[in-house]
């Protein structure tokens, strides 16, 4: 390999966001060619609105993946959040409904955290079991609430799906602060550094005096809360609520974090890449729809592209 290529690779490795952003731009260009005139402010607005719930779910995934874990219960928890809000709001008002949802989701996250942090259950199996428990509980609850009926409150629909000032998505009001807290928190706060430390080398972290179980317990509660917020936005965006509302976002949430450069083995990655990953997946879905591919072909291409991007990314950023 020539010297210049090595420097080029090294500079890419130091700034892993650059190739991702290039891919994003490339996708937009392809989209503009595939359907001239589609790329406008209205398209941008709807892309952002659809990417935000995915990005929030992927945030939960990013944080858990930093500690070499994974949270497969985020979709079930997000659906629970949307469903609780839709059923409690008519009687309790939207604010109390959101609070109830947040408490329920934090509780589910706490159980995950206790299982993973204290009982050392593998995160894959703990959160998988939890997703079954949550799904079952919501379905039972659905049966109890069937007479009361569910309706997404207007405030939530405004926040999740509405726009102001001629097209700026309202959900940015929620997303920008959340993203800022995560981005700054991971870089600057002690807790953020603990997440990287635990994921990088748990034994070393423990020997250095880190109470790993506390870090993990808090982490999964945070993950549950993020899932609750994602469910809130998604419920508002789709103006519907059911026990399986967020299910189809589970695999994309993992994919967004992975494409965004977060290592599933822990210790490497960040939220900025995940946001770009969520945008890439959302635009990719639009592109495949615009190209009028039949659903099966769309699925095949979706999987193949995720794999290709992940493989290219691994090669670029790998320590040689």
């Amino acid at each position, binding site marked *: 390999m020539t010297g210049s290529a090595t420097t080029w690779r090294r500079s890419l490795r130091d700034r892993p966001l650059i190739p991702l952003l290039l891919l994003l731009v490339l996708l937009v260009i392809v989209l503009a060619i595939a359907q001239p005139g589609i790329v406008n402010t209205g398209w941008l607005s709807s892309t952002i609105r659809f990417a935000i719930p995915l990005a929030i779910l992927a945030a939960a995934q990013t944080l858990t993946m930093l500690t070499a874990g994974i949270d497969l219960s985020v979709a079930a928890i997000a659906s629970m959040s949307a469903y609780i809000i839709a059923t409690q709001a008519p009687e309790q008002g939207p604010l109390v409904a959101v609070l109830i949802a947040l408490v329920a989701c934090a509780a589910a996250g706490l159980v995950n955290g206790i299982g993973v942090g204290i009982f050392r259950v593998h995160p894959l199996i703990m959160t998988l079991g939890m997703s079954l428990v949550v799904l*079952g509980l919501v379905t039972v609850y659905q049966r109890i609430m069937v007479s009361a009926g569910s309706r997404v409150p207007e405030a939530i629909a405004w926040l999740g799906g509405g726009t102001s000032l001629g097209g700026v998505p309202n959900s940015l009001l929620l997303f920008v602060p959340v993203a800022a807290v995560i981005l700054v928190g991971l870089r600057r706060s002690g807790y953020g550094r603990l997440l990287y430390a635990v994921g990088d080398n748990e034994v070393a972290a423990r020997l250095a005096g880190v109470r790993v179980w506390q870090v993990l317990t808090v982490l999964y509660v945070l993950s549950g809360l993020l899932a609750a917020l994602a469910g809130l936005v998604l419920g508002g965006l789709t103006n519907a609520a059911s026990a399986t509302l967020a299910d189809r976002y589970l695999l994309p949430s993992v994919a967004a974090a992975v494409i965004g450069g977060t290592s599933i083995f822990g210790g490497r990655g960040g939220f900025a890449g995940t946001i770009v990953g969520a945008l890439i997946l959302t635009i990719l879905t639009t592109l495949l729809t615009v190209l009028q591919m039949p659903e099966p*072909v769309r699925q095949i291409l979706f*999987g193949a592209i*995720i794999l290709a991007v992940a493989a290219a990314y691994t090669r670029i950023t790998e320590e040689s």
Partner: protein
Amino acid sequence: MTSATERPDGIGDVLRRLVRRDSWLVALLVLLVALLVITKLIRPNYGAFDLGSLAIAALPVALAAVAQAIVVISGGIDLSIGPMMALTSVTAARLMQDSTDEVAVAVVIGVLLMGLMLGLINGALVVISRVPDIVVTLAMSYVWAGAALLVLGTPGGGAADWFKDLGRGSLLIEWAPKALVLLLVVVGVVWIPLARSRLGLSIFAIGSDRLAALRSGVDVSRTRIAAYAVTGLLAAAGGLTLTMTTGIGTPIPGPYTLLSVAAVVLGGVSLAGGRGGMIGPMVAVFVLALIRADLTFLGVDPNFTTVIQGAIMVVVVMIGAFLTLRRRST
């Protein structure tokens, strides 16, 4: 793995060693027997027929679990098992529709080879792309699910009568459901030669310590691909049993990927790789199926059954992890 022993053991020794070394499996078997007793207590007329339907319901899940177990032992994980089963199932259903019995035999063999190929592709992509197993197989799960929809857009197709009969009824005695016998035969034919071969040893070796395996001369890449290929083969067997028991093919993947992971962990296969066997996951599948059946007999809301199943899965693994921790500290 069993190592050669110097002196012949008495039955007591064998039992003692089994309890000490495979305590998890023994506990699981005790749980299975306890559940069977409980089932008989809450439903006194539970008989051979019910056992048969239990075996038929558990057959595809058990094959998915065994498929997952092999790749997990090799230190990987395959999240595309459910979609692979859907793809092989619809392929079999489409090709078998209105075909003669002889053609159906060829279809079964062809679909098994197809599963082997799907697994080979998964494994090769994992090795070549250097992307973590979980991500590759997650991406491939979209590919296989899409391919299944291409083969058959809606549930349909058919199956030869002799093929459907393979899983129905019982063999020789009333208490040996054909589905159970079939499961044991398929797993035995694949696993027993594999476990005794060099490849089987290599699969355990790369699962427990990849670097050490490499240094002792194991071709790590080839072994990983082979493990995925065997997983694909067993997933195809699982897909065939879906066509066998339903008589049609359904392109939308069932919950088999998640069930297989759950059964593998409950069955005592370490997700870190290198440890476990085939009997544990199979017993775990029957334990989960029996719990579901019992809760239905008791008239529990089917949705609540999901809650209890999830909780049991977590609690059993928690107890296991807790015991391991305690044993390590003493």
